[in-house]
């Protein structure tokens, strides 16, 4: 299991990465994909949707169960990873390369409230 130190995390197992263009890329952690097992379906938010931090905005379904994904930050969804939706098992293969959606954050300070790698791994 890997937990890169350059990312921010939520206790609900999402990761967030601030990009150079100011958007935040969001995915699920390696720990989450491992716990979910074989992922077979991704339901991603509509581009343009405005989400609040902690709001359910995607669903990851494995053979076993459906799991809600919560946006770590508030803002507008500006992009989704259609390639991952077309090949959901890619998230099992690499949960950090295969992100789910991008948000243009309304308040960058929300990122500071997220967990760092050490704090995240301490949650399980």
């Amino acid at each position, binding site marked *: 299991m890997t937990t890169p130190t350059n990312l921010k995390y939520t206790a609900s197992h999402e990761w967030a990465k601030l990009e150079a263009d100011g958007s935040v890329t969001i995915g699920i952690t390696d720990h989450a994909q491992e716990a979910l*097992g*074989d992922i*077979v*379906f991704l*339901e991603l938010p509509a581009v343009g949707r405005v989400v609040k931090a902690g709001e359910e905005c995607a*669903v990851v*379904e494995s*053979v*076993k*169960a*459906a799991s809600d994904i919560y946006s770590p930050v508030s803002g507008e969804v500006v992009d989704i990873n259609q390639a991952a939706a077309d090949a959901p098992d890619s998230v099992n293969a690499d949960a950090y390369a295969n992100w789910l959606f991008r948000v243009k954050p309304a308040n960058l300070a929300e990122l500071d409230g997220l967990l760092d790698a050490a704090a995240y791994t301490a949650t399980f």
Partner: protein
Amino acid sequence: MPLRTPLYDSHLAAGAKMVDFSGWEMPINYGSQIEEHHAVRTDSGMFDVSHMCALDLVGPDATRWLRHLLANDVAKLTTPGKALYSCLLDEAGGVIDDLIVYFFTAEHYRIVVNAGTATKDIAWMRQQLAGFNATLTQRRDGDGALAMIAVQGPNARERFWTAFPTARAATVLLGIFQAADWDGWLVARTGYTGEDGFEISLPAADAAQVWQKLLAAGIKPCGLGARDTLRLEAGMNLYGQDMDEGISPYEAGLKWTVDLKDTARDFIGKSALATRPVRNQFAGLLLLDRGVLRAHQKVITPQGAGEITSGTFSPSLNQSIALARLPVGVAIGSEVEVEIRDKRLKARVVKPSFVRNGKPIL
């Protein structure tokens, strides 16, 4: 303290992810559930099913009692080792459990019931034994405890014989739903996957060594996850999910297991079944849109609402499938809608059986 089978250490050694199943600590998978599923469809896999409970029934009234206890009729079992699937009904015709009964002689049977229902079943059975000359002995723990290993898949029998060459002669001619004794083991040509194979009952003390030999013969360990997708594709009911005490066998797709041929036979639940209304039918669903069908999702049909009882992503069909209870009158082949979160997705109603012997049968 969770219950553990004699193969607990073998599972850990094989890298199993363990979960609680009806109080038992069981393997959900050993890495990838989908790979395990495909192994059973294309080659062979093995499952520890020692959490299920074997019961031995012995006594002069054994046959008479089973004909009273079970909705299916053991009178049709005349060949030693022949097995029968049946529902155990309550007085109202609800399903207490589903089970397999093996006939050895008219005074000796083996019954195998589900793990989570065993205590309830045994209490019910003992109550029903009053006035009958027969004894029921559980074989799940204590002296005489059995382990059960299911080897399933098109190559499962061959690989079993590779591991145990001398078992071939005693088991090669076994027909479907037929078992034979081999060296104190009960080898049955039964299963819960829709594939060929054996279910083997053997002394618990030998289980780990036997598992190791089967592994060496190339049989892949498979967890409860793959067991569920395999049985769902095969259209086999799971007790507690697809039926329970609130459901009659007629609404669970199990009418074929209720034997009314001998009109003189009076079994528990028979009179209730004769008058109990049948409002629902058991059907399969094939999701036409993208998504995954799950238990308890609502199905919208022109005849009214139905409910999914088991749903999953089918690794063999690469599409989501489900078993569902739908109002009587919904036609096979028709299109219905399933409520998934805030959406209504299209699904086709099909017969509740999707894959058999490695091939789609839609």
